């Protein structure tokens, strides 16, 4: 396994699939399924961070949970350091649980409110080591130091509710690194936090990576964070990976039409660039993952879709250092690869005017969008879920992906 090139894969998935049964079928109806993750093969390289990005319903959380061993796949396999994760048992499983940790988004529900910080942080050592009380206490104190909470003994006797959201997430980080794992799956770890606190915790994650040699799978919907934290990116759409590449390549020049749309929709901080850049409006609503579109899942919303897209699933093809699942990316007559020598953002910054007109590339500016003639604009219709309980379940499930603003 994983003998390909210089960076070694710590984790690799092979055809990983997860489907959930849709409840509420009638007596004679066929069982229907939500296809959360559809045949995903990915490699996560040792000592690097792979960001798994996508919108709600893309399956990124489900994929992350399967890779962390929290969810049983419906098909395919996960290999962790050469060990089959799905079928491991006994001592091998136990060792995997040490090596592999998970960080949840919400630091309010991932810490037991009735336990003290000492209890919470001692638990990993009690379960997995033979250390005595004093040894554990010194480990716990050291952990608090590592995550920047200081070493005051009074902290240890406090309960989670006595800490702010950012501090709680630090405690969650401390628990995750307690047993010096090799790999951490972090599911939206900073999404619910304020800007200034977010930067503190991202710094902490980067420091851990350097000092402990950690490998991360970083699941997020926030593209701005990806650039800061991850060396590699995998973009998901309706359960499939559509583009996988080094972060700089994706951000400088996204190639898959969905990635282009996603980056174009992400707000920029520079008002001038933000208002002059092009973006790719998507056509129509997000399809249901119970009845995903045929062929390329993205074809119903893709401005460049042709006949073949509706019939044939595009394989994840290599294009230089990246992999892209699109029939046409790489062709010289494909607008995204032909007209865009550099990144969208940089092109917009250099000159909004000198850039090729919108008609050929399908790209429009915000200004064009807000003009009264709105022919090029997608109608964002209703999600097809009338009377469809499964859809609702899926969305409820995905609610956990969403950022939660702590209210004032």
């Amino acid at each position, binding site marked *: 396994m994983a003998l390909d090139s210089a960076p070694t894969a710590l984790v690799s998935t092979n055809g990983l699939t997860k489907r959930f049964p849709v409840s509420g079928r009638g007596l004679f109806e066929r069982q229907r399924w939500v296809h959360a993750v559809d045949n995903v093969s990915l490699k996560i390289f040792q000592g690097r961070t792979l960001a798994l990005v996508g919108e709600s319903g893309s399956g990124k959380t489900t994929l992350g949970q399967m890779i962390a061993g929290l969810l049983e796949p419906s098909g395919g396999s996960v290999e962790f350091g050469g060990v089959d994760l799905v079928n491991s048992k006994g001592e091998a499983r136990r060792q995997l649980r040490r090596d592999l940790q998970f960080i949840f988004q919400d630091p309010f529900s991932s810490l037991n409110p009735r336990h003290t910080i000492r209890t919470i942080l001692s638990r990993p050592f009690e379960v997995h080591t033979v250390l005595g009380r004093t040894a554990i206490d010194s480990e716990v104190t050291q952990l608090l130091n590592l995550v920047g909470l200081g070493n005051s003994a009074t902290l240890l006797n406090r309960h989670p509710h006595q800490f702010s959201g950012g501090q709680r997430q630090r405690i969650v980080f401390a628990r995750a690194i307690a047993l010096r794992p090799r790999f951490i799956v972090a599911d939206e770890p900073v999404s619910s936090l304020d800007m*200034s606190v977010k930067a503190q915790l991202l710094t902490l994650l980067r420091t851990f990576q350097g000092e402990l040699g950690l490998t991360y799978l970083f699941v997020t919907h926030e593209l701005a964070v990806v650039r*800061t934290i991850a060396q590699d990116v995998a973009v998901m759409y309706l359960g499939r990976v559509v583009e996988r590449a080094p972060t700089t390549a994706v951000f400088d020049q996204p190639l898959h039409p969905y990635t282009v749309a996603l980056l174009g929709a992400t*707000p920029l*901080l520079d008002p001038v660039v933000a208002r002059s850049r092009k973006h790719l*409006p998507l056509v129509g609503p997000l399809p249901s993952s119970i009845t995903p579109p045929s062929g390329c899942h993205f074809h119903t919303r893709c401005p460049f879709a042709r006949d073949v897209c509706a019939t044939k699933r595009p394989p994840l093809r290599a294009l230089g250092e990246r992999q892209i699942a699109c029939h046409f990316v790489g062709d010289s007559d494909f607008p995204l690869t032909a007209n865009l020598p550099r990144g969208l*953002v940089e092109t917009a910054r250099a000159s909004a005017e000198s850039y090729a007109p919108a008609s050929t590339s399908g790209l429009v500016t915000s200004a064009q969008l807000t003009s009264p003639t709105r022919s090029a604009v997608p109608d964002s219709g209703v999600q097809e879920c009338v009377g469809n309980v499964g859809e609702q379940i899926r969305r409820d499930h995905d609610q956990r992906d969403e950022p939660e603003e702590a209210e004032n």
Partner: protein
Amino acid sequence: MTDQSSARSRDADLLHVRDLTVDFVTRDGVVHAVDQVSLVVRRGEIVGLVGESGSGKSTVGLSLMRLLPPGAREDPRGQILLDGQDLLKVRPAQMRRIRGRVIAMTFQDPMTFLNPVVRVGEQIVEAIREHQHISRSDARDLALQAISDVLITEPDRIFRSFPFQLSGGMRQRILIAIALSCRPSLVVADEPTTALDVTVQREILDMLRLIRDRFGTAILLITHDLGIVAETCDRVYVMYAGQIFEHGRVERVLTHPRNPYTGALLRSAQSIDEYRSELYALAGNVPSLVDLPSGCLFRERCPAAFDRCVAPPPLFADRLGDMSRCWLAEGDAMASGGRIPDGA
């Protein structure tokens, strides 16, 4: 009355808030949520009110709508002048007529504000008939129009849908449709896209700009996201710990911030167009609003703090009306012939 209203409409300032102060009385003590906030929204403008959680931005929004929960205390010395009328002095019955028709609000979580067992069309009709004495069928036509206004195709189908049948983005559009249904002059949009995916967020923000262009509706956009401000707003007020810390045109504030807090916020924000090898992390936390520190509220976290910061700085304004609550701005304000506020 007619003289008065024509005098009002000549006034470019649609909303003029002066020294709005809101405290909450809680078991743990008095929370100073909003401290002497003054802000202006002109007709047809999109103004951002940005801050981290606990900065008081949502409390300002609720106060404008006179929808603060019991336990909130507003300082009677403040003013909320909407079209020249002080909303702090208006009786509840009168406020109900103003709410919806002159000022309307949309909220972050549409599911909480839409009735789950009533079809969305009925909910829009209800809102319209609350404010206008018109027949059911006329109200229905207006409701369908309101749905089309928020760029929904097939308004008939949406009219008959229940909220749970709609996606998050659609629900937010319906809330905006309800807010717009009586053609208010000002819409307060509280975090309208926070729970939405970026591609949907983009559609909603583009739609808000389109609504402003078409109907001349002024929008006060409350958000924690500087990127949304950069994409959407004309001017911005930055709040910290209940106070306005900076104000100005978006192009200036986000590229050349004058207040150290805005600068720190921008430096700690991540953006897709820039890789930061050194992440700037603002140390410390927002001060407790129950037990506010003396002097400048940002002093303990401020990279530029110096000895004058032990005294609370006023909001210095320059000639163009750009403001910064920082002693460092004093010189600029004086040099440009700007206003040195009272008590400075």
